[in-house]
């Protein structure tokens, strides 16, 4: 296991920023990994969201499908599923003390132009209430094209305030 994770890009947000793009996915690796830590936003009750990127930029089409379980420390768990959305998302967080999100994606088939691109996700967040909430599940962009990265942003054109976003490749 050790020695198999290769850092490709790290972006640290230290002031208000509209989006963070992680790029550099190509044929070098079959599976890529994204880690975000200590991510905060500037507006209450909004989601950290993301889209895949192709050679032209962010993919804005309505082809994002997801199936996840939302785990909550204070309430029954819920299913979070849907088809033909325009982005993926975490749970809603806010601006209160310690409200933040941390998570990991594994990316599959991103460099394969003849298959869909998939990801699995696991996130642990202090949401807007603030209560521990997180996601276990996955998503797919139902377009047969290759993808070069992802862009993270905040729901409704709000801003990221802090956090670290890192893209890794898993050595073949």
């Amino acid at each position, binding site marked *: *296991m*050790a*020695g*198999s*994770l*290769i*850092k490709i890009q790290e972006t640290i947000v230290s002031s208000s920023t509209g989006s963070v793009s992680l790029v550099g996915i190509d044929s070098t690796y079959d599976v890529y990994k994204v*880690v975000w*830590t*200590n991510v905060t936003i500037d507006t209450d009750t909004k989601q950290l969201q993301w889209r895949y990127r192709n050679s032209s930029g962010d993919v804005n089409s309505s082809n994002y499908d997801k199936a996840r*379980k939302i*785990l*909550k*420390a*204070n*309430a*029954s*768990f819920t299913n979070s599923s849907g088809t033909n959305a325009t982005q993926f998302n975490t749970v809603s967080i806010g601006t209160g003390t*310690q409200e*933040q999100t*941390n*998570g*990991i994606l594994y990316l599959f088939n991103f460099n394969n132009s003849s298959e869909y691109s998939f990801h699995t996700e*696991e*996130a*642990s*967040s*202090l949401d807007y209430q603030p*209560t*521990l*909430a*997180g996601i*276990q599940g996955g998503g797919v962009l139902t377009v047969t094209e290759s993808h070069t990265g992802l862009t993270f942003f905040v729901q409704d054109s709000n801003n990221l305030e802090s956090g*670290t976003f890192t893209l*890794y490749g898993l*050595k073949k």
Partner: protein
Amino acid sequence: MATNLQFINKTEVTSGVTTVNVDNVFTDQYDVYMVQITGLHQNSNVANDVEGIRLIDNSGSVVTGSEYAWALLILYSGTTFSEQKSTSDTRLRLGLLTDQLSDGQTGGTFYVYNPNDSSSYTFINSKTFGMNTSDNNAGGKMIGVHKTAETIRGFQLYESNAGRPFGGGQITVYGVK
């Protein structure tokens, strides 16, 4: 080629104990850590799940107060999935269902976020598998948080029931650079 998953520590779980401290593994070198538990089992036929983990603060003390919140989905192979949760607990439950080695074992991976940041809560998520004669096969998906902003330098594998000591296993810690 330089790599970014870096081995820090491997701890053998000795038979007969109910706590195992993995201390001085979280430092200012990494923001995120990956911990792998392999081959964890009990030393007698008790077929139950391990209580969980507790964190070790910067003074070396195990955090035993009600400072943890967690949510765990247990995926049973033979029955309905189970939702377990707490907003105020004395440990983080991972869903490590295990047994004596002849009947089962458990393992999994959990990630720790921001343990060395004294101004941030420490967050965790995990995925585990396990087998015992009571539950057959089961997997766990968990999220957790330590709700005190302080520096965390390690963790303790924890079982409160003296009648369910560990039989063996390994715990390996990596830094994600």
